């Protein structure tokens, strides 16, 4: 079975070949055995050939975070069938460049520092979000203008709630 995997933005194709009860992948033109066994609740042991890596996985296939040794990767994965279905739907890049800034964690908006129509550059502070008694500035991650502000000072937001739309 072939899989489309996005690893920190880079799209890769992975083919898992099953033969004689084992699974193989091709690395640098050479086939190596790949074995992932569940230790418990999101903790795995990966063997790639003889190379051993402890793995912690969390999240859904769409947003799968993997820690391999000391490296953390944000990935998404779909099998061939799902990829084709997604392509047919015209999806795949819908999120890209949407300009919507979302809350990365629950918190309370303490201060909104921009107004609709403001021209901003990458790094401009947009608002201050307080969580765990720490005040955190949320900054623009690209140049643009403020198209819409979805919150005001005092708004309690959940993770993923829209904060500001940049044009």
């Amino acid at each position, binding site marked *: *079975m072939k*899989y489309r*995997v996005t*690893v*920190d933005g*880079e799209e890769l194709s*992975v083919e*898992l070949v099953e033969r004689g009860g084992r*699974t193989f*992948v091709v*690395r640098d033109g050479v086939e190596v055995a*790949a074995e*992932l066994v*569940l*230790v*418990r*609740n*999101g*903790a*795995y042991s*990966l063997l*790639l050939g003889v*190379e051993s*890596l*402890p*793995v*912690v*996985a*969390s999240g859904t*296939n769409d947003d*799968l*975070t*993997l*820690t*391999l*040794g*000391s*490296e*953390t*990767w*944000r*990935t*998404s*994965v*779909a*099998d061939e069938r799902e990829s084709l279905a997604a392509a047919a739907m015209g999806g795949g890049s819908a999120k890209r460049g949407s300009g919507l800034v979302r809350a*990365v*964690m*629950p*918190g309370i908006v*303490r*201060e909104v520092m921009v107004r609709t129509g403001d021209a901003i550059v990458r790094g401009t502070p947009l608002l*201050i979000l*307080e*969580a*765990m*008694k*720490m*005040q*955190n500035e949320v900054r623009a991650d690209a140049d643009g203008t403020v198209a819409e502000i979805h919150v005001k000072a005092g708004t309690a937001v959940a993770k993923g709630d829209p904060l500001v739309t940049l044009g």
Partner: protein
Amino acid sequence: MKKVLVANRGEIAVRIIRACRAEGLATVAVYSDADRREQHVRMADEAVALGGSSPTETYLAVAKLIAAAKSTGADAVHPGYGFVSQSAGFVDACAAAGLVFVGPPSEPMRLMGGKVEARRAMHAAGVPVVPGTLDPCRDAAHAREVCDGIGYPVMLKAVAGGGGKGIRKVTRSEEVAGAFDRAASEALSSFGNGEVYVEKCVLAPRHIEIQVLLDTHGGAVHLGERECSLQRRHQKIVEEAPSSWLPGATRAAMGEAALRAARAAGYVNAGTVEFLVDQEGNFYFLEMNTRLQVEHTVTEMVHGVDIVREQLRIAAGRPLSFSQADVRANGHAIEVRICAEDPEQGFFPSAGRIEHLELPGGPGVRLDVAVYEGQEITLFYDSMIGKLVVWGRDRDEALTRTCEALREFVVSGIRTTIPFTLRLLEQDAVREGRYDTGYLDANLARIVGHGTGRHRFAASVTAALVHRERARNAARAAAAVRGGQGGVPAWVALGRRSAMRGLE
């Protein structure tokens, strides 16, 4: 002194209970509704429910804490760090209730709690302080005026508080007003006091602090320094003892200055005098922490001393168990704070259930944690869930062991700072001891990233294998509903048969 109420939770409550056991003292835990299953409740001899879950209703509720102590016959209270540990009002309430407070008297606590008063007192006692105002600024405009006079960069600092809250660095005159307002409002909401003063910014400083212990018999020792320069936005991330860099003469001078500071304040019990040290080895009094500190552990590891036991001895009116002549550092220790935070999301707290937990171990590894599998990490309290403390014969051994321990430390279900800290310790600058308090903020984005990226291919294969496993599990679950049955690996079946029949 026979029974100690521990007015805290998490790893530090556990730490204090352990020290009480070593001193033969009975212990009383207190707990919020959210904490009924926590380790400190299960470890203590007795436990009293405080009712409610927010800090204000529980671990900050002075009247409830005093009542819990009285109802259980406790004769002393250890506050740990955070919560009521630096509340002079709580110290006075303990005294009024006839309870021994395991910590300093309220006067030095009040003095050191007011940063500006402390600066004044230290200046008077001949302890070097950072150039700046000896009084809080009246308002943003006044602050700007003062800053312009000192010259940039400057630090705006809340008079109350600590732990990185209410502090802002300002590099240009026009930034002063905004930074002043935010520091003041943060300090007001966190500490109930919005006063802010100004200090000159010591360029590329190291944060180095001295642990002191003073008993009621005039005994006073310092236990050398801890270097805490690896900070993210003034929050300590990694601490070590001794410093990788401090010249010996400066160390001795700082130890003497720290004891002078403590004596000038009328200090008793354990405390920490924090200094900024510039590249030339000039050191400036920053503040005195009038409590046990999170990072007291690294000092314990290199000196073989149990600081909390000494605190209990001092509180009971006994002399220190050793003198300055007995103090000799042995090897090197590093502490890493383990936080339930997601570095990739700006270190926002990560709540959830700990699904899988594996703790590191082996030579030199000490764990001060209060975590267990199945534990619910809530957002009610601090995000630090524990500390990894590692000793080595020298800094290299300590560092290598720390990295290995971080690799072994597996937490799933919540995000933690473990992989991030491992990448931090793998940086050349950290390995070589070449960093100041600005290092981490300047290099944060790179370190939050993926290190070498060596495992990109393995990550892609893992993602595919996880996908396949999930699809198979879903298919198997569907089949089971239709009347199928799950399989058991051959060796498990064999092991069980073997266990039944005694064939091995």
